[in-house]
Structure formats: C-alpha cells, structure tokens
C-alpha cells in the first residue's frame, strides 16, 4: 500500500489491555488548569518506569465543566487497578490539590470507583466538609487560597494501551515534521492520549536485552546508525525513525487515532521525506489487540 508516495508496511501494531480513568481539572483560568494538568501528567510516559501513562485528552470550555470554569480533561492508564488508584491519588494530591484555584472532578461515572478526594480529604485535618449534590459526593478541603473542591471518586474502565505506528523518514527533520503533523491531527480525537513528550518517542524498544537486569532495550532493527551491523529493517534511504504511541479507552479509539495520525503524516508524503509507515509488535503473542495497518487504512478512507 502506498499513500502519497509513502509506503505502508504490511504489518500490525500490537496493543495491550490496561485500566484507565479520566479526571477533569478546572481552575480560575485555562493557564492554571493546564499548569495543574501538565504537572499531573508529567513523568507519565510509560508504565515501565512511571507507574502510569497519562496525558491531556483535550481542553474543556467552561460550559463543559461541572463548576463552569475552564479546564482540562486528563486520561490515566495503568496495568492494574491497584497501580492506577495509587498513581491517581498521588498525582492528584501532589499536582492538583497543590495548584492554585484548582478543582478536580470525575470524568468517568460508570464502572468500578477509584478514590479521588476520598482520602485526600484528610489533608483538611478535620475542617473538610462533604457535600452530596445531585447524587455526587464532593469534598471541600480548606487550603490557603480558599477551598479545594474534589469529587469523592472517579470511574475506571478497561482500556487499550500501546497502539503505535512508526514514521520512517529521510532524516530527523522530516521525521519530526511528520510526527508533529500526526500529533496535531490526533489531538482532535477523543478518548486517546499520546503519552510521550510531545506525543512522540524516539527510543522504540524491543523485549529483552543482552543485560539480564533489563526487560527491554533499544529496538536496534530500527536504529539507523547501526544499520550495517544489525538485522536492520531500514533501507538506505531511511535516516531517522520516530514512533507515536497511543493509549485509548477502547480499541476503536486507538484505531481511529492511528488512522488520523498515519494519514496526517502521509499527507506530507515521500516528497517531504516520509518514506515509510510501519508499526511495532511482538509477533502477536503478547497483546490481544492487533491493528493491521493495511486493514485499518482501507476500512476508513
């Protein structure tokens, strides 16, 4: 398959089941909502070492938030319910509770509940107040700029993590431009995040390492500087490869984001250095979700 001169590999992305939740962070203005949301989603690129993968799903207008203030919708993904609950509480406690004028609300109302303000309320040292409004329980915790308003819990859902595609380009500049174009388009898709810095990852990994202590190591097959000494996937015209990893609430969300991203990258085409699109997998043995590039791109024009 070729789109705008870019070759689409006949391969598939392999994704895994995860647990996810959504929270809504509001503040006096969008600037402070984002300060809080960016802080909460910091160091949350990969579950390998961060505990969770998190990102800002989208900006929220005042009409979309429970308290009528601007805000940000944040998605968090983890490998287990326990880890997700731990990361959520830590991050909300350190990054939202602490952030001036912030408030925090549930973004998913069904499913198993994860504590949001349920335990953070104890920061109030007995001065905290519970309010049950319209069937939802909120905590009002006195803080130095007024009150921190936080919903008691948020819902958790099964989700899909690790959807991906690779952009193989002539050089770093071309790969980066295509990645930026893809991310800009993918940010308009709901229910997904691209957890790496700027949505893009350059250190794609393979399972295992020559060092026993490491569970994963660099994906040498896609590293251009060792092309001549390893079993490389790269042809001589490829100078740089960047990967976009996608976590979504459903496999359909991940698929939609992949389609939008690949098409945006291919819109630049071979003329702008986007030579190939590929995807990362582990032979189909590890993850239950397989996104075959040819199939998904055929399914949605």
């Amino acid at each position, binding site marked *: 398959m070729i789109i705008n001169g870019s070759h689409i590999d006949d391969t598939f992305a392999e994704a895994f089941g995860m647990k996810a939740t959504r929270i809504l962070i509001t503040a006096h203005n969008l600037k402070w909502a984002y300060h809080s949301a960016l802080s909460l989603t910091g160091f949350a690129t990969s579950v390998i070492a961060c505990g969770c993968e998190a990102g800002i799903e989208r900006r929220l207008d005042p009409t979309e938030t*429970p*308290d009528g203030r601007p805000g940000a919708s944040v998605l968090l993904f983890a490998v287990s319910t326990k880890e997700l609950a731990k990361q959520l509480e830590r991050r909300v406690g350190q990054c939202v509770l602490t952030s001036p004028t912030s408030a925090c609300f549930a973004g998913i109302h069904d499913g198993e509940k994860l504590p949001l303000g349920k335990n953070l309320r104890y920061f109030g040292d007995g001065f905290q107040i519970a309010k*049950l*409004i319209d069937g939802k329980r909120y905590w009002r915790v006195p803080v130095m700029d*007024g009150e921190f308003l936080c919903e008691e819990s948020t819902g958790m859902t099964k989700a899909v993590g690790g959807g991906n595609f690779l952009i193989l380009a002539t050089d770093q500049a071309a790969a980066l431009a295509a990645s930026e174009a893809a991310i800009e388009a993918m940010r308009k898709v709901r229910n997904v995040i691209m957890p790496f810095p700027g949505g893009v990852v350059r250190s794609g990994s393979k399972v295992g390492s020559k060092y026993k202590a490491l569970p994963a190591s660099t994906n040498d097959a896609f590293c251009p500087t060792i092309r001549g000494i390893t079993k490389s996937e790269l042809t001589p015209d490829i100078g740089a490869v960047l990967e976009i990893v996608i976590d979504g609430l459903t496999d359909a969300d991940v698929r939609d984001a992949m389609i939008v991203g690949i098409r945006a990258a291919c819109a630049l085409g071979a003329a702008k250095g986007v030579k190939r699109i590929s995807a990362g997998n582990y032979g189909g043995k590890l993850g239950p979700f397989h996104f075959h590039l040819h199939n998904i791109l055929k399914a949605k024009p």
Partner: protein
Amino acid sequence: MSALTFSLKAKLTLRVDCSSLTPDGLQGKTGAEIECIELPMGNANITVAEVFKVKGRDCEQIIFCADSSKLDRIGAGMSGGEIVVEGAAGDYLGLGMTGGVLRVAEDVGIFAACEMRGGELRIDGNAGDFVGGGLPGERRGMFGGIVVINGNAGARAGDQMRRGMVLIGGNAGDYLGSRMSGGTIVVMGKVGANAGFAMKRGTLVLTQLPENLPPTFNDCGVHPLGFLAVLMPVIRRYGAAFLDLKFPSNRAQRWMGDLANIGRGEILLPGRVDPLRLIHPTAPAIF
C-alpha cells in the same frame, strides 16, 4: 391506566393514618382489596371505602382529592412512584420515604419529611415545625432526598438533619437547622431566632443574616467557594422561588458554628454583613 384516586367522602373529625396508601403498599391489590384496607383513625380502625371514594387502577400514581390536615403519614415509607395531594395534608408527610415523588398543593402539618432517606417531596404551601427532623426521641433526622417548600416552614426545620437538601422559598421559623449534622438548607426569606443552634455540621444558605444569630457563630469572611458553582444550578432547578439566589463569582460570606458544639456548621450569605452590626445595630459600617 388512570391514576389511583382517593376522594375524601366527608369532612374528617379524627385523624386518619394513610401510611398504607402508598405505591409500595398497594402494589398488586385490586380495587376491592384496596377499599377493604383498614386505616387507623383515632383509637380505632376504619376501612378505606368509609373514608374515600376510590377510582382508577395505577398504583404507581396516586392522587388524594382531599383537603384535610387530618390525613397523616401520607407517603410514609414510599420508595417509588408518585403521590399527589390536591389540597392540604396532615402530619408526618413522607415519613421515612426512600424514593419517588410526593407533591402537596397546600399546607402540611408538622414533621413533614421526617427521617426522609431519599426521593423528592414538594410542598406548594407552608410546612409546620420540624420539617426534615427526626421522630421525637430519635437522634437522626432527614438522611437524604430533597424537600422543596414554596411557602414558609415552621420552627426547627432540619433538626438533627444528616444529609439531603431542604429548600424553603419563604421564611423559616426559629431554631433553623438546630442540632444539624449534615446536609443543606436554603431559605429565601427571613429566618427566626437561633438559627444553627447546636449545629455540628451542614450548610445553611440564607439570603439575609438571621436577626438573632447565636453568639457561638464566628464570621470567617467573604470567600469564593467552588462548590457553590456546582450547587446553585441544582437549586435553581427546583423552581422560580429559588432563581433569585445568586452568589456572584461564587463568593459567600461564611459564618461557622455552633462553637458550643464542634463548630463545623456553616451559614452562607451572598452579601457582606458587618459583624459589628450584629452586636451594635447602630454601629457604622466599616467594611
């Protein structure tokens, strides 16, 4: 199916306990069976047929075509469906109800919404004392649900209230929210003496400071309170009487008390009231 209608046959001389005439209590019963139900009246029982003319079959929608303050315990313990009283009602309206909707067109007696757990109770007239309170001797009042009173409420509204919301479109009597330990009471009109007496927790949302606030309430100043942005749209949903309740920029003056108790209750007011004026009504405003 038409609504099950109970039309009062004659003026009552004694009080009648209507607690068995709820959607839950009448489920699956035929018209004849309903007419044979015995209702406590005074120190004896009387059948439904002797008190009411019964029409209709839909137990989920019950109408009392009756204007009698002697019909007690209407909707007591109901968990669903709808009861409409096209007139006044007696005492213990909606006692311990857990769900459903109960509407009364005119005044009701004492202890309405007493120990209520859930559902919605709307009173278009006035309510007597102890709205949302607990039964005498009990230590817990209303525990959930919402009560909307378009008229006035008597004394001790929300006494020992633990959770839920009471919206009063008119005035409230003395000892509003006394011994309250949670929940929210809104009063659009005037409030009698000693509001919040022995209050532990909970919120009184008022439009004006009570004339005689217990000295054990302290002014905490005017502050933006984020939860008002969540609460106000819910309150406004319950009718025109509450549309005027506004907290610009979610700012409220907050009084906390009763410090003779644990002092975690609060009285919220939309405007600034000079605390000195409470002690010295003629003192100049300095704020």
